[in-house]
């Protein structure tokens, strides 16, 4: 990807865009933003660049198409879930801005993935958000809604993580997937926090989800060995076991993710 071209293209689309974003970044706290990062982050331009690079999806390696369609399935699930929830009065007003922002992000993820995949994008499946009756009041009881949201977000983070190594033959797409992955993690932390959970996952705690669901969503989160290094041994007496497990979000395989998602597919 040629950054200068992206940048030029962006300014053509919206001449004042950079100026506005600079104002935002100054007013905010992240002075790190440069024109370059702003330009590269703009998804319309990004989608079109990825699109060009991979010939409207037709030149994407097969393994990448598989990963992106898998990701698209999860994004469809999340987007549709929040889109329905968005119109419901049961969401307490103090939480509405959070859910509305998350809904918008998921919508952008769907659009981006569809655009990169082009004609190879799968269409949206039909969903049953009660998960075959497991969550009958998902759209009438906020506690249930928030619990399902937490399950989706933490699963989403773990799903993207599991697929990252499968995108190493398409680096621009890997980078974008990592950006989505980090975004999903901010969602997951926020939802956990509003449910009275820590923003991170201690051990393989079901974190307030029904035990059967929690067992699947947090399976393996109690791992303390990274690259054959047993951190529990090294940090014995320095960091509690819980903290060591929180420090690493573990991946889920595609099969593990589909097992979680399956009840939500009609």
């Amino acid at each position: 990807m040629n950054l200068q071209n992206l940048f030029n293209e962006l300014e053509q689309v919206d001449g004042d865009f950079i100026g506005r974003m600079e104002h935002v970044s100054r007013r905010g706290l992240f002075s790190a933003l440069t024109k370059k990062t702003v330009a590269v982050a703009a998804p319309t331009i990004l989608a079109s660049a990825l699109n060009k690079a991979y010939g409207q999806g037709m030149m994407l390696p097969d393994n990448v198409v598989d990963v992106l369609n898998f990701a698209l399935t999860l994004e469809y699930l999340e987007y549709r879930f929040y889109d329905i929830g968005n119109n419901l009065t049961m969401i307490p007003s103090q939480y509405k801005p959070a859910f509305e922002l998350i809904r918008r992000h998921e919508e952008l993820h769907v659009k981006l993935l569809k655009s990169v995949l082009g004609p190879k994008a799968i269409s949206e499946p039909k969903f049953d958000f009660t998960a075959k009756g497991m969550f009958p009041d998902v759209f009438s009881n906020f506690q249930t809604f928030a619990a399902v949201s937490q399950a989706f977000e933490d699963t989403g983070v773990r799903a993207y993580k599991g697929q990252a190594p499968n995108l190493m033959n398409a680096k621009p797409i890997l980078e974008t997937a990592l950006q989505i992955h980090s975004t999903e993690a901010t969602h997951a932390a926020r939802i956990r926090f509003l449910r009275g959970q820590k923003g991170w996952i201690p051990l393989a705690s079901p974190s307030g989800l029904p035990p059967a669901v929690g067992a699947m969503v947090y399976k393996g989160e109690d791992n303390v060995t990274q690259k054959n290094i047993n951190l529990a041994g090294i940090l014995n007496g320095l960091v509690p076991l819980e903290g060591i497990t929180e420090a690493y979000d573990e991946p889920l395989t595609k099969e593990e993710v589909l097992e979680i998602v399956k009840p939500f597919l009609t």
Partner: protein
Amino acid sequence: MKNMHNPTQTAPETASVQRRSFLRTVGAAAVTGGILTACSTADLQVSPNGARAAAPGDVITLPGGDLGILNYAFVLEQLEATFYQMVLANPYSGMTAMEMQLFQDLRNHEVTHRAFYRTALGGAGIPDLTFDFSSINFRQRTDVMEASRMFAEVGTAAYTGGGKYLTDPQNLKVAGKIVSLEARHVAIIREMEYMNQTAFSGENIVMDGLFIKMEPSEVLPKAQKYILEKIDGRNLPTAVA
């Protein structure tokens, strides 16, 4: 937590002078006090072959390839771990139980990450760096929260942008396990500062659904401000393989 701070508010010059001299004292106390003890215990357990300490002014040149990116991450983890150890050694007055828990968790996570890199890199790792956080007033809640947030944001953006340079899938796997933690930190720190708004995933960190990413050349100058050795990142990858 109740009030929204004005992020553009700057301390008057006199305050910042006082803050600096205060911090020099606090920093010295922390180094001679509990912190160094905790660190040296960790060193003994983590690097039996002896973690070399760097000296201020040393130039530390990061290697290229995966090893370079891992050492680059190690710089950031050393910075964060040391910072949170100092926050807990010098808690600002009025730190709530919830905030104390937050900083303990952040310390636990970053110390765990630092120990991982120290062990994984072994003799190929950079030495323990010397930090100078005298520009941060540890007595001020706002200063500590702002610095925490900045470190978490830069860390997330650094891992998000650095992942593409890793060529060994095992390295990418571990980096992926850490980056989402850093992003969770960003969300929670921001939530504690700007409750029930959209700051947790706000538009200056997540633009149109994508968390911003940063290149090593953008990140290192931000970290360098707090490091007394000179970190030279010229050998780090700048183009994907």
